């Protein structure tokens, strides 16, 4: 199948290792990848700051770029950015030119772990990583995108990996996009609590499906002089792969994602 890579601005600007790992994993499972060059950003930095008018062109560009290549699916390495693309139909519902395109885009867009588990039906990606790790469950991926289980199912099957539960999994790390920049006084307290929670697990590695949250948490780790290794889930699934270990899962056995915030009982 043909997959367009929704690279996200943060991977394009900062973290080539994450993008590369994602592409390698997807290709390993038979995806033919393309990288639409005109894509830039989902638009959250301005939209969530209230610059909604200024974000129209950003969303238009992203739609044109991602739909401009021949692909069955669009896959991105960030729960938050993918959730934003999924909200485009709502944001552009009164836009005669883009409303329908926004829906087309949203329908074929998936977050990386979601795609690997739910579309490719991979249960064991064949990875091996001899370490102890904990997982940061990002807010938009769980509450807005409704994907709470895919990363955990995939991590469960990484050979040699011991997962330690992260206390206060439900609390935001304090990133919040421009929030981290505009409200450092509050964000600092939130990320400090998150760093303390991670430290309390004594894990060697911190894993997430949102590189932006990781940039926040691990940036604080470095500032505090605390030790941690950071890995995006794609990098974990791309570690020491042995194709003999690979296992697939039937559609009927998939663990449901848990739904968006509207369906939760929390």
């Amino acid at each position, binding site marked *: 199948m043909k997959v367009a890579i929704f690279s996200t601005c943060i991977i*394009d600007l900062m973290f080539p290792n994450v993008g*590369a790992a994602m592409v390698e994993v997807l290709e390993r499972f038979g995806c033919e990848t393309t990288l639409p060059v005109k894509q830039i950003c989902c638009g959250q930095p301005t939209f969530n700051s209230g610059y909604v008018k*200024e974000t129209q062109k950003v969303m238009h560009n992203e739609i044109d770029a991602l739909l401009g290549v021949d692909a069955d699916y669009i896959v991105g390495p960030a729960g938050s950015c993918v959730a934003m693309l999924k909200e485009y139909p709502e944001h552009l519902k009164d836009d005669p030119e883009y409303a329908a395109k926004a829906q087309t885009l949203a329908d074929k867009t998936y977050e990386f772990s979601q795609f690997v588990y739910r579309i490719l039906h991979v249960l064991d990606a064949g990875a091996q990583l001899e370490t102890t790790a904990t997982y940061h469950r990002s807010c938009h991926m769980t*509450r807005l995108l409704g994907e709470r289980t895919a990363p955990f199912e995939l991590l469960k099957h990484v050979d040699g990996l011991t997962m330690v539960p992260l206390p206060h999994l439900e609390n935001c790390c304090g990133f919040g996009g421009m929030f981290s920049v505009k409200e450092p*006084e509050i964000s600092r307290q939130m990320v400090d609590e998150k760093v303390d929670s991670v430290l309390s697990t004594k894990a060697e590695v911190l894993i997430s499906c949102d590189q932006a949250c990781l940039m926040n948490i691990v940036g604080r780790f470095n500032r505090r002089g605390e030790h941690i290794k950071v890995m995006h889930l794609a990098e974990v699934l791309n570690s020491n792969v042995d194709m003999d270990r690979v296992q697939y899962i039937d559609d009927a056995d998939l663990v449901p994602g848990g739904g968006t915030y509207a369906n939760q009982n929390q």
Partner: protein
Amino acid sequence: MPIKTSEQPFLTRLAESEKDHFMQAAVAKAQDAQWDKRTAARQDLGNWAQWRELAEQIRQHVVRYLPDYLEEFADNVEARGGHVFFAKTDDEAADYIKQIAIDKGAQHVVKSKSMVTTEIDLDKKLLEIPGMSVLESDLAEFILEEDDFDEPTHIVFPTLHKNRDQIREIFHNKLGYDGDNDPQHLARFARKYLRASFLQADLGVTGCNFAIADSGMINLVTNEGNADLVMAIPKTQVVVMGMERLVPSLKEAEVLDQMLSRSAVGQKLTSYATFAGRQVDGESDGPEDFYVVIVDNGRSNALGGDFESVLQCIRCGACLNVCPVYRHIGGHGYGSIYPGPIGAVLSPVLRGYKEFGDLPFASSLCGACSETCPVKIPLHKLLIKHREVMENQLHMDHSFNNVLMKGIGVATGTPAMFRMAMGVDHAMFGPLSKQAPISTENFINHGGFVKSAPSLAKGWTDVRDLPRPPKHDENFRAWFKKHKSEASRS
């Protein structure tokens, strides 16, 4: 205390909150306990998603037909011999109640917990009457009152910021309490004190959880039973309610009481759930004179507009109990009697952006509030909407950041500009970059990190290190190109 609880600027309040380690620990502990209790109480009920759906529909229906339900409710109160007063502002409401107290010659007012009476600053207004005593009979509100009207910091647990030692101190200094700091002893002391006061009360003031339109009755839920005494003993009762606090009939009140109790305190139902009105023939207790004051005070600003759904709120406080920002800055940080996510949405609706424009930005938009809300108010979306009104419609930001944000809008919408940014970012970060200390792995991979950046990025580097971006020929797009050309060669 009116809506605004502090004249200090936002950053000062934040700094004060951060120093209050007791408050932060107490909020965290309460939040953690409520995660368990609330979740269990909701699971216990079963079909939570459907209950929420129903509760949302009830509230939306009432808000849509508010004028009709207000009229029906008012007619029914009057048919039972009660009086209804519609107050446009806080002052109108408080002045009206003060006049009732004067006309009745009341000297001893007892109150049960009510956010809307706090909102209209009723206690202070009543105390202007010579010889008047006003007694808050909810234990937490009683503590705040005795502590010279300290500000409430939570809409359900107003004294969350005080510990038992502080409460003992207040009781000792103000009421001559000589016992220890055991909460049971403190509560018993307060109970005895309050009981005596109930018996001499000549005017009772309550809030209203829900007003039943088709019967003219009001519904109150408490765990202390104090509201029942406030209604049963004094000859005159004044009910103060926000104008949106209606339900069509008992049937809907029953649904919402469930949602409220389980969401607010993780209980199936509170210890007392009361439906009452003016004493009618054959009843042995209840007020002979019954007044209902229906307060607008800015609520109609929300009607028919982008913020209408905020009127669905049933004041359960669950959004405060899940909010990671409230967890750290507490009620004091918000500077409003309505703190947390609901406060950050509601306070600017009631009082405008000049006073509360900071609050909608005090959120990471994590969505925990929208997820937990039992009546499905899309709180985090309303926070973005407030930001949009401030930035796009009112153009309130005249700082350099405003120019930068617009620049980011242009840059993230123009492929050529983004390509340029990807080309120069490594070099641009060069002069700012440091090589050490690095305590993390797989994070700072491209020649150092930035510890101190100017302008908008300063907020980032005030708290965290920023890895230097990769060189142009080492970034993801360069990798992908190379990867594809290698694949086509092999």
